[in-house]
């Protein structure tokens, strides 16, 4: 019978916590980049112009249909060859996850914008707003509220996807756990502790999201 011993994990708890901080930082950066990219892609996709909507469609479809690990490797190992730039694991991960989550956010934005009744846009235009004003003042505020649940779900998916950066040696929680497991010869305890840290963090985020959703539902105008 195996004897569990968590003391080496606890003794090195700061390493795992530093990893968790890096995971959260990377998720934050990818979110901060991904949401504007997603909005831009969605607006380009919905614009009447073929020159905007076609490239946006390609970016969205390619990043949604190819595996994120292949994308990461492409940005980390492949891109520096074309661009002749020094690529760090952090930069590669931030780029990959910004564009990848942007592609997913674009579809969420699109669904939200399309869900706002056409008549509202027409009414806004009729009282003299420009297309951009109608979008900013009338459509987007309602669309964003309806999109909230899907946005939160995607953000949680994003946090889980950031574990892939461990494969290019960025010191996220998973990478730190892997290092620690090799150092302490306690893979069972270390990986279990890391899994629990993810579980707690992600459960906490989804609990907060559920709470906000309920608040929004009370004030009306939610999807469904």
């Amino acid at each position, binding site marked *: 019978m*195996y004897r569990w011993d968590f003391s080496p994990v606890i003794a090195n708890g700061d390493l795992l916590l530093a990893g968790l901080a890096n995971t959260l930082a990377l998720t934050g950066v990818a979110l901060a980049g991904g949401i504007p990219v997603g909005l831009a892609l969605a607006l380009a996709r919905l614009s009447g112009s073929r020159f905007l909507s076609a490239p946006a469609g390609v970016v969205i*479809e*390619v990043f*949604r*249909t*190819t*595996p*994120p*690990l*292949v*994308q990461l*490797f*492409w940005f980390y*190992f*492949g*891109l520096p*060859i*074309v*661009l002749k730039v020094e690529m760090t694991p952090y930069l590669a991960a931030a780029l990959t996850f910004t564009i990848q989550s942007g592609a997913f956010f674009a579809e969420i934005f699109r669904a939200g914008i399309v869900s706002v009744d056409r008549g509202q846009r027409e009414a806004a235009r009729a009282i003299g707003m420009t297309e951009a004003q109608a979008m900013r003042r009338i459509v987007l505020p309602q669309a964003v509220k309806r999109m909230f649940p899907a946005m939160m779900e995607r953000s949680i998916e994003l*946090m*889980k*996807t950031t*574990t*892939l950066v*461990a*494969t290019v040696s960025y010191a996220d929680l*998973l990478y730190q*756990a*892997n290092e620690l*497991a090799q150092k302490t010869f306690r*893979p*069972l305890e*270390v*990986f*279990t502790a*890391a*899994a629990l840290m*993810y*579980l707690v963090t*992600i*459960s906490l985020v*989804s609990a907060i999201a559920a709470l906000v959703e309920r608040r929004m539902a009370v004030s009306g105008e939610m999807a469904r």
Partner: protein
Amino acid sequence: MSYRWDFAPVLDNWQALAFGAIGTVRLFLVCLVLGLSLGLVVALMRRSRHGVLRWLAIGFIELFRNTPVLVQILWFYFALPMLVPVEISPFGAAILGISLNSAAYSAEIYRAGIQSIEPGQWEAARAIGMTGLQVLRRIVLPQALRRVLPALTNRGIEIFKMTTLASVVAYVELLQQGKLVASLNFNPLEVYTVIGALFFLLLYPLVRATYALERRLARSD
């Protein structure tokens, strides 16, 4: 931007990539079958009258949905052998991680499908003398499965993308073989472009088919 792309070394190594592709498809098929069927079992447990079964299902779903699949694969590969005295191959660890993760996700899909069938149908079927299992098999599941088919196809596409994670434990699949070819020929740009393109070409028709399926179901409902 004066880099000259050269795909010849990638094409010369097509056999290595084809070998990897076989590994990818093999892993995908096993995980698809295991994940989607186990998911149905978990969904039914989740609806069970027995508290123990229900809580087991909820715990399983929450655990596997709220942790990253890569952590699950690594846990099965590095941690599980400490607990049970068996050797776990990269293939086995990838199957365990991806299948159980997919089971948790698809359980929620099945549950939504079963819940979408009006209670009146259950009552009517029970009233004409069917047992609970018969109602499920003959009345509820055929309709529920039809409704969730697009969501299940999406899950299938996700499983296919997830198979690349098996390269982390050195299971021989497309990306793993790509790493090998790239390190031997110093051409990561071309290799990963080709691999990305292969995944896209394989999966995009499926994505389109799912869209079409969604539209058809939306019309018929």
